[in-house]
Structure formats: C-alpha cells, structure tokens
C-alpha cells in the first residue's frame, strides 16, 4: 500500500547508480581519474552521514574530520603497530568514533545552536592536535607509515580498480542504509525534529534519542571512511584531518542539499569535479594555483546558501517532478477530452 505523502526508497535510482559505478572504470581508464573517483567514494560516505545529521536531525558538525581521523588512525595503529588483520580492526575503527560521538552527544546534550557548532569545532581541533602531538602512537606530523593493504580470500586489494570497487561497494551499502533510515519511522521523526523540535517533542518524539543516534551513525560513517582511506594509502598524516577538511565535507553536503541522501552524494561528486577541473586548468595556466580551489569552494557555499537554500539536488529534482506532472496532467486532460 502506498500512503499519500510517504516517501519510499526508489530502488530504480539505486540500481541505475550502481550500474553507473560498475561501468565507470571501463569508460574512464586513466589511473588519475580512478584514484579521484575512489577518493570521491570515501568522501561520499562522510558526506552522507553529515547530510543525515544536518538535513534530518538539524544539527551542524564543524568537526566531522575528527571522526574520520580517528577511524583512520585506529586502524593504522591496530594493523601496523599491533599487527591485527584490517578486517578485525574494522569494527574497532567504527566503534571508536561512535563512542566518542556518544560521549560528545551525552555530555553536550544541553548545548544547541551556535554553542553546539562551537563544541564540534573544538572537538575537531582537539583531535587534530592530539594526532600531531601524541607522537608515541600516531608518529606525529610527519605521518604514519606502513599501513598494510587489504586482503580478501588471499587476494590483495591494491590501489586502482580493486580498491575503487571496494570503496563504492561500501558507498552503496551506506546509501541503501541511509535511504532506508530516511524513509522509515525514524526518518520521519528526524525530519520533524529538523522542522520544529518543540512541535515534534510535544507529539511524543524522543528528540534527544534520535539526534544522538544519528550523530553516532554519522561518526561511524566517518570512521568507515577513515578505515578505507588508511588502507588505500600506505601512509596517512594529520594534515588530512584538519578544520579545512571538516569544512570541505560541509561544502559537499550544502552544495548537494542537506535534506536529501542523494544530495550529499551528488554534492561530493561535484566538489571533487571542481577540484579536478581546477587542477587541470592549473596545469595549463600557471597562475591558477590550488588556492583557486578554495576561492571556488567559498563562492559555491555563498551562492548556494543565497540562491539555492535547499541545495542543488532537491531543487533540480523538484523541477523534474514539476515538469513530469505537468506533462502527465496534460496527457490525462487530453485523454478526457478525447473520451468526450
């Protein structure tokens, strides 16, 4: 039964998307683009989690890179220093960021608005500083070397096509999981929190519980991304987990549209494409440096907030919907006219 106004997961979309991912390496064969696409997948996992947090729970996180970093460093220390198998360290790399988010959420539950933004910002800076300074464990600013590659059934998943598929396999899982959450009772409760926390709590929605759960989930997604990032690269350094990284994740979500899981995914892809285009232009015109990237990210954030407050994806999706319904209503009108 289909209820009026209840959104359901459009499996067609997921299927088409999965197919596009499957054929991408056959169409684009340069290893540069494949690496970029793999990175895009890693970022997409974080962006989807952040999108759930922002668009559905109405919370902001200015420190998402902290969870990403903790995931990456947890697995690095467990595998390279302590010799665990990466597959065993995966649950731990999810658990630690989740646990931190739980503690954060629990202690900071009295904070809201700008104060919460401040708290997440502080968390990001604290974690980054610890990654740099706790040299005994993290090896400091120079970075952590010798992270083992992933092995599956005796087959090494090395950088390139195998890792691309692995990352996007996880992206699809995260995507399906998120779409299902969004279209479930929990998702509707979350959306009501986003619209009006007071109204939804007076309707009997346990707002703090849902907000906490989604915060933990977004942290675990970031941890998963960190795990993928660590085992893709032979080495990691704290420079990848800065405030700027947190802002970049924010930009991805805002560009795509925080009220939609697909939006976060599309936003990630677009932001990565901007990076690639700037990089390519920079090779042709020496005056275009990597700083241009930041100018453009800044510009995107400003323009999106002013002109597309809901983000790119929901706006475009509505255009299409409007276009389609107009067509179909015209058709049905014609049919009616013909019958007469």
């Amino acid at each position, binding site marked *: 039964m289909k209820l009026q106004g209840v959104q359901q997961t459009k499996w067609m979309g997921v299927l088409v998307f999965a197919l596009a991912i499957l054929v991408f390496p056959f169409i684009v064969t340069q290893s540069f683009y494949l690496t970029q696409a793999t990175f895009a997948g890693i970022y997409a996992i974080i962006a989807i989690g952040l999108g759930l947090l922002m668009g559905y729970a109405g919370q902001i996180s*200015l420190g998402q890179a902290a969870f990403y970093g903790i995931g990456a460093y947890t697995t690095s220390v467990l595998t390279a220093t302590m010799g665990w198998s990466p597959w065993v360290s995966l649950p731990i790399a999810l658990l630690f960021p989740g646990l931190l988010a739980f503690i954060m959420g629990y202690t900071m539950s*009295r904070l809201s608005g700008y104060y919460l933004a*401040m708290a997440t910002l502080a968390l990001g800076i604290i974690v980054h500083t610890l990654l740099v300074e706790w040299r005994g464990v993290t090896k400091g600013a120079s970075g952590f070397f010798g992270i083992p590659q992933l092995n599956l059934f005796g087959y090494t998943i090395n950088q390139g096509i195998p890792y691309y598929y692995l990352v996007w396999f996880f992206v699809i899982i995260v995507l399906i999981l998120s779409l299902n959450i969004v279209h479930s009772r929990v998702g509707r409760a979350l959306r009501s929190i986003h619209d009006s926390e007071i109204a939804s709590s007076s309707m009997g929605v346990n707002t703090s519980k849902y907000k906490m759960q989604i915060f933990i989930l977004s942290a675990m997604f970031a941890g998963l991304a960190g795990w993928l990032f660590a085992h893709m690269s032979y080495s990691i350094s704290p420079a990848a987990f800065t405030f700027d990284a947190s802002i970049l994740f924010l930009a991805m979500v805002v560009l795509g549209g925080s009220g939609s899981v697909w939006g976060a995914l599309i936003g990630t892809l677009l932001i990565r494409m901007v990076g690639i285009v700037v990089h390519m232009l920079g090779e042709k015109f020496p005056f275009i*440096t990597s700083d241009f990237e930041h100018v*453009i990210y800044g510009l995107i954030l*400003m323009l999106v907030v002013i002109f597309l407050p809901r983000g790119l994806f929901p706006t475009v999706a509505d255009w299409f919907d409007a276009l389609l319904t107009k067509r179909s209503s015209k058709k049905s009108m014609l049919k009616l006219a013909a019958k007469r």
Partner: protein
Amino acid sequence: MGDLLQFTLTGVTIGSIYAIVALGFVTIYSVTKVINLAQGEFVMLGGLTMYSLTSAGVPYLLGFVITIIVVSILGWIMEYLLIRRAKGADPISLIILTIGTAIFIRGIASVVWGKDQLRVAPFTENTPVNIANATITPQAIWVVVIMLLVVFLLYILIDKTMVGKAFQASSVNPLAARLMGISPKRMSSLSFTLSAALGALAGLAIAPIMFPSYDMGTMLGIKGFSAAILGGLGSAPGAVIGGLLIGLLESLGAGYISSGMKDAITFSAILLILLIRPSGILGEKSVGKGGL
C-alpha cells in the same frame, strides 16, 4: 615566579586580541543574530592591507586610518551583498554562508599577498621592557591599550549615544524598533561595518607581533568565536572575559605543559566550561537555545 608573570603577560596580550575579535562577533550577533565566521578574515585583511600601504611608502598614521576605512567598507559590502540577501535563513545556513565568505576572502588574499608571512613595523620603537624578571614589548602594551580603548569606545557608543540606543532597540525587538522609526537594515549594515573596523584594528595591533599571512584569520576567527561563546553570546563583558581567559589558558598551557598541545588544552577547557555552563560564563539561560 618570573615564568608565571611572563606567561600571564603573554596571555593577556594575545587574549586582548581575542577579546577584540570576540567583540566583533558580539557586535554583529546582538543586532542580526548572525555569527560571522569571516571575522578572523577582517583581522587578516587589516594586517595585510597595512603591510601593502606601508611598503608603498604611505605614512604610518595615514596607513592606519586607510586600513580601517578599507576593511570597514569590505564589511559593509559583505552585509549588503550576502547577509541581506540571506535574511531569514536558518542559523546553519548562515554559518555556512559566512564560512564560505571566509574561505573566499582567504583564497583571494593568498593570490594577492602570496603565502609568506609579512613583516609590519610596530607602532613605536620596540625595545623590550623588563618588569620583574619578565619582558614585555611596547607593542604588546599597545595591544592591551587598544583593547581597553575599544571596550571604552564601544561602551560610549552603545550606552551613551542615540545610535547605540537604536542598536540596542533593534537587538531586543526589531519589529518594535522599526515602529519607532529605526531601520534594522541600517543597523545590521552598521554592525557589520563596525565589527569589520574592530577586526581591522585587531589586525593592525597584532601585525607587528604575529607577522600576518593569508591564513592567520582562521585560527583568530575560531578563537574569537570561542571567546564570544565562552563569555556568553551577545554579552560584551563576556566577550572580553572569554578572550582574556582563552589567551591565558593558551599561554599557561603552552608554558607549563606543551606548546604543541596548547590548542588541545584550550579547547578542552572550553568544552569543560560549556559542560558546566551551557550558555557561557555571562550568558543568559535562553541565549542560543532552540536555534539550530
């Protein structure tokens, strides 16, 4: 004992800068309820504009005035082009808008001024002075003096003038203020201009000590934001207390524990204070509640 005095002096100096930046946050927030995360970028622009002017041979005092005017105009432009258009957006969007502005300004600055740290001459001759086993540079004294001056002038402006009354009125109740013939739009624009000027002033004061570069604004903005939050958003005395507290935490943490860990120590302390007082040290209970 000498150490403690030295760390305290350093802490008060840097804390004064944070306090000025935090006052910029408070000025904008109290009128528009916007947190302007590009506030640190005004500081950076202040320092770098002064560098360009002095190296172009403009006299020091004239350069000082021109810098403040230029950055104030930029603040006005920012309000006019961005904030006014996004009126009514929710706090998350506004945070993102000002972060976008900050990144944009920083990117432009890195193209214009390059990535090196630049040297700006101090206000007066800068021979360190010895006070009971601790040294302090005249520029550091200037920084503190400027902070006190800013606090005093802001107090006069807000509490003793008609403009200040209009400012307070549109902060308390924009609609009622409008009915009384005050234009909240004009006040919003004034608040951005004023806090850009404050940022520029902070930049001018800190430039000879910190050697400005295109990326100095991020951390200063974050610390100023923390100071404003710590003091209680919207409270000017809170901003000053917050700023000095963060400056002291930072310099004592760097001195006694580890200079690399200073940011972690400072922000852990901030989290701890927020845990005990969720609306800041001098914040009212309702401030910042129900926003996001």
